[in-house]
């Protein structure tokens, strides 16, 4: 899985953003609404225009269109295909990439098992609960064996119980598959639960990068930007 580098990224949100996401890590990007978190994911996926360079393992992917970047993207609203059943949703990626029918079926079975949703195979998205939809969307984004997994506030629509269950699931799968993952959230508790490393972002600028354990030990006064950026949540976590 690649190391991702963003060099001097400029667009309508960012003004010279530089950051690095390490191989196989789960990086959490935290910040308030409008901070540029989703735009950051869209830049990595190639879904928005930008200047500067995005490098996967040192190789520029600037000229690479989204469909060639092999990125798994879990959208905030999940964006499942409503006209396809669960199996077809998951098999969509391999199908459009020209995989053979047998290998698509095999991959779908594998992911249904991994997500523990075999029983939902023939259901349509409208007949799924929030947690089930989440699992299907995650399975769909993993179906193309992505180099990078981008998760845009994946827990925002879930209740607390389901949220922590899906968090564990995503963490388990991320570790198992060793995919470089970027998770965007505005919730410090989620960041704490999920992240290997945390980036705090606000107004299109990086205000702090830290691994959570380091941050946890700091006095909040040492992290004024991060505190401003994420509000009282970071305050109490930093104080421990």
């Amino acid at each position, binding site marked *: 899985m690649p190391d991702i580098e963003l060099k001097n990224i400029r667009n309508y949100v960012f003004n010279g953003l530089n950051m690095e996401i390490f191989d196989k890590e789960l990086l959490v990007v935290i910040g308030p609404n409008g901070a540029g978190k989703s735009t950051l994911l869209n830049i990595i*996926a190639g*879904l928005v225009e930008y200047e500067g360079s995005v490098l996967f393992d040192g190789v520029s992917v600037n000229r690479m269109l*989204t*469909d*060639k*970047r*092999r*990125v*798994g*993207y879990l*959208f*905030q*609203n999940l*964006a*499942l*295909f*409503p*006209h*396809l*059943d669960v199996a077809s949703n998951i098999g*969509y*990626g391999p199908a*459009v*990439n020209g995989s053979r029918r047998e290998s698509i079926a095999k991959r779908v079975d594998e992911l249904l098992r991994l997500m523990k949703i075999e029983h939902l195979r023939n259901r*349509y*998205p*409208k007949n799924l609960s929030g947690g089930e939809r989440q699992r299907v969307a995650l399975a*769909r*984004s993993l*179906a*193309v064996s992505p180099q990078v997994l981008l998760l845009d506030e994946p827990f925002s629509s879930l209740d607390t119980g389901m949220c922590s269950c899906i968090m564990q699931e995503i963490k388990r799968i991320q570790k198992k598959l060793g995919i470089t993952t970027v998770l965007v959230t505005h919730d410090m508790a989620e960041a704490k639960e999920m992240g290997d490393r945390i980036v705090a972002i606000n107004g299109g600028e990086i205000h702090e990068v830290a691994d959570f354990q380091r941050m946890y030990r700091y006095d909040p006064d040492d992290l004024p930007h991060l505190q401003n950026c994420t509000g009282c949540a970071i305050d109490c976590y930093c104080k421990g």
Partner: protein
Amino acid sequence: MRTKSMRLFVTFGNGSKRNDLLCHNPFIWNKIKSLRNILDGLIPIIIFILIWECIVRLHIVPEYIFPSFSAVMREFYHLTVNGVLLNNLASSLFRVLAGFLLGSVAGIMMGTVMGCRQIINRSFNPIFSLLYPIPTLGWAPLLMIWIGINEILPIILIFLCSFFPVLYNTITGIRSVDSDVIKAAKTLGASDRKILTSVILPLAVPNIFTGLRLEAGMAWRVVIAAEMVAIPTGIGALLIRSESLLRVDIIIVCLMVLSVMCLVFERFFQYIETKMTKEWR
């Protein structure tokens, strides 16, 4: 099978057993419900026909002005047997199918291009916005001069009648597809063409079919009007000939046929739409 039906018959005599049977057999329950719905719709029609028949039989209105339902049905039978009705219906049907098919296909294709490409939408939208409000029959005099009074005239009129609504409904359908769904397809590796055929068009189907369904009935209204004005064959022509002969019974037959054809066309598209989308809508 026989035993089962006999059991059904027998248990219908007993209230509680009947209720048990109905409650526990959704198939029978649904059948009875749909039969009840049909009856609910049929009863007013039957009452209307009875009143109609009585009014004429009681000589409240003269029969040459308002023939009885039975007289209309007799004329329907004669027109069907001697082939007049079927020949004229076939002429009208051909025109409707040809014009509607061409108009719909052109509307869907143009709507797809305009819905997907902003620049083409910006270029064509002003001209289509100017042409769309013109009533279809308003084109008839112009088309009579340009192409003459022939078989092409009603086909082009129906083409115009179907094209614009299908076009705008297709554009609306395509525009209403969630942009995140399109982005999701992109991140999964789908090309623009694949996204169009596998995501955008299937999701635009309900809107496209709304246009098709509404215009399927309208196409029949337009063809009748065109045949009444300009074309010597078809249901519209039969209508206008009957008017000149004061044959009210034939006029009513033609109107009934027109009504049924409009309904059949609209229901056909409704059926196809339901078939295509009922699983996921």
